[in-house]
């Protein structure tokens, strides 16, 4: 059997694993940023109401 299918499978797996993982981290960071902005605005609003 040729070596190439094994080589291609290795590189494909590397790209799939790291690509999916990087995307997951990217989404987590985007969600964290959005939540932080929302929470910051809420806190500012509640402080303004109290004042």
């Amino acid at each position, binding site marked *: 059997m040729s*070596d190439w299918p094994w080589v291609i499978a*290795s590189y494909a797996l590397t790209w799939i694993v790291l690509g999916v993982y*990087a995307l997951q*981290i990217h989404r987590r*960071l985007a969600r964290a940023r959005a939540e*932080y902005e929302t929470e910051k605005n809420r*806190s500012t609003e509640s402080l303004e109401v*109290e004042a």
Partner: protein
Amino acid sequence: MTPSNDAGRLAGGVVVALFVAAQLFGVATSPAEAGMGHLQKIMYVHVPAAWAAFLAFGIVFIMSILYLVRRRESHDLLAASAAQVGVVLTGLTLALGSIWGRPTWGVWWTWDPRLTSTAVLFVIFVGYLALRSFVDEPQQRARWSAAVGILGFLNVPIVYMSVRWWRTLHQPSSSPATVDDPYVWGLRINAVVFIIVMAYLIRRLYQASILQRKVEALEEERALATEGSHV
């Protein structure tokens, strides 16, 4: 779009470009190896993934010690981010080794000391991540994680030395000092790029963890303020 978003996207684009370039360089410049033929090209992903994982666990080790000494939450969060990236890279290393092992040794898996010690390393740090999800109290979680992180890292030198201590099926460690000339630069470049990928992923994960902590702190602050206004 904020400037930090833009910088993150730009850094991500640069990392992907480096990753593609390094792999193309490795594959294009290495001739078929005398014993293994083109299977040798798997070395450019398998070995750098292992090195990057070891380095990630090295970060866990250093940050865990720093946490126990200084008790700063940032050290704990950085250790946790590095552990997660290390687990993904170790899992990838094991899977790539399995793909390389099948045509070379005729088996997907064997209980060779290098493979077994790497699997143990993987399980220890999966346990580290599981522990973090089970313990709710942040300081207790950080203390226990630091202990597991330090003890877990002690397996890294065992994995590294396993091919010297127990000469079995796995070949001796590949490094620029041990591979033939045509493969040296491919290995060096891919190793550097994998380490850049590891650092990029840890940084992004750490940023997300810091923001999540800030959100929790703001929520607590608001809850306390609301309680105070009702009293």
